[in-house]
């Protein structure tokens, strides 16, 4: 039998992108501002979510999709502050994809949500390659990780709309050079917004809350 070459020219993750567009449409229809939170393990994703819920939950209804390799530790923390939460265990998988998020959306009271946080699996290698249906791609970089991370994970920094630079309270103990960090990140991604904060002490958090509230209002129209 003769061999025939069939031109394909399609992205391998094209199906995920189609599903992400479907999720986005569903969330847009309900005017829910959706934030995909990515970072390495331990950078402060859950801390940022908890502080933000505490600050904004009197004015806005906030829900969370928690992605984790295993366990429901984070979901329990979110549940304890009274926000609807769905836990997705990826069974060892290193990222969330749009199909998992769809399942999460099926299990949330979407008619009663203004702001949805999707906490991705802690990993800087691949979560940014999977669109989920979000409005905002946010990554957290924390000072102990070092200021050279943008060189190692350039795509992650290039894809983020917002970078939260967390654990600024540790600066006296570290050699982290914020200027050098900013120079690479701003260079790769001129539109990025960087918020230096400490989730622990609260320093810098007000700027983030104000910005996020503006985005929620913008989405509500």
């Amino acid at each position, binding site marked *: 039998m003769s061999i025939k070459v069939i031109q394909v020219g399609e992205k391998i993750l094209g199906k995920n992108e189609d599903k992400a567009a479907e999720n986005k449409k569903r969330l847009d229809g309900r005017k829910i501002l959706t934030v995909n939170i990515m970072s390495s393990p331990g950078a402060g994703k859950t801390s940022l979510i908890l502080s933000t819920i505490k600050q904004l939950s009197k004015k806005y209804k906030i829900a969370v999709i928690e992605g984790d390799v295993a366990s429901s530790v984070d979901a329990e923390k979110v549940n304890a502050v009274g926000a609807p939460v769905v836990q997705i265990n990826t069974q060892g998988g290193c990222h969330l994809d749009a199909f998992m998020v769809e399942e999460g959306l099926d299990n949330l009271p979407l008619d009663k949500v203004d702001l949805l946080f999707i906490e991705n699996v802690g990993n800087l290698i691949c979560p940014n390659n999977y669109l989920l249906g979000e409005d905002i791609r946010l990554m957290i970089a924390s000072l102990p990780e070092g200021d050279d991370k943008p060189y190692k994970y350039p795509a992650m920094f290039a894809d983020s709309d917002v970078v939260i630079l967390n654990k600024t309270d540790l600066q006296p103990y570290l050699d982290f050079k914020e200027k050098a960090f900013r120079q690479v990140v701003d260079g*790769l991604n001129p539109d990025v917004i960087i918020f230096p904060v400490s989730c622990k002490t609260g320093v810098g958090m007000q700027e983030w809350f104000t910005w996020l509230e503006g985005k929620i209002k913008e989405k509500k129209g």
Partner: protein
Amino acid sequence: MHEASITESMLSLALEKAREAKAAKVTGINLVVGELAGVVPDCVQFYFDVISKNTMAEGARLNFEIKPTQIKCRKCGNVFTPADHKWECPKCGDSNVEIASGRECYMESIEVE
């Protein structure tokens, strides 16, 4: 680890295209992958050998064209390969740069019988 899900997506895309072409067998899959895409070819091949069993793509050859990381200066347009810790444009010194190549992850073609 993400190679498992990439391999699943890749296999299902190849099978879909082969069915559309009414092919009997997939003998080769040609992929284009950038250095920054985080895809390890050996790893994809390993998963592929397992999950393609009993499909018409069983035994297909995977060919990877690897695209190197290329950075483009947004100021002067110079395209260059970045050094480890130096991403400023070697021509004009500006640090306003974009990733021009290295993030590709697509299927160029399949070979079928």
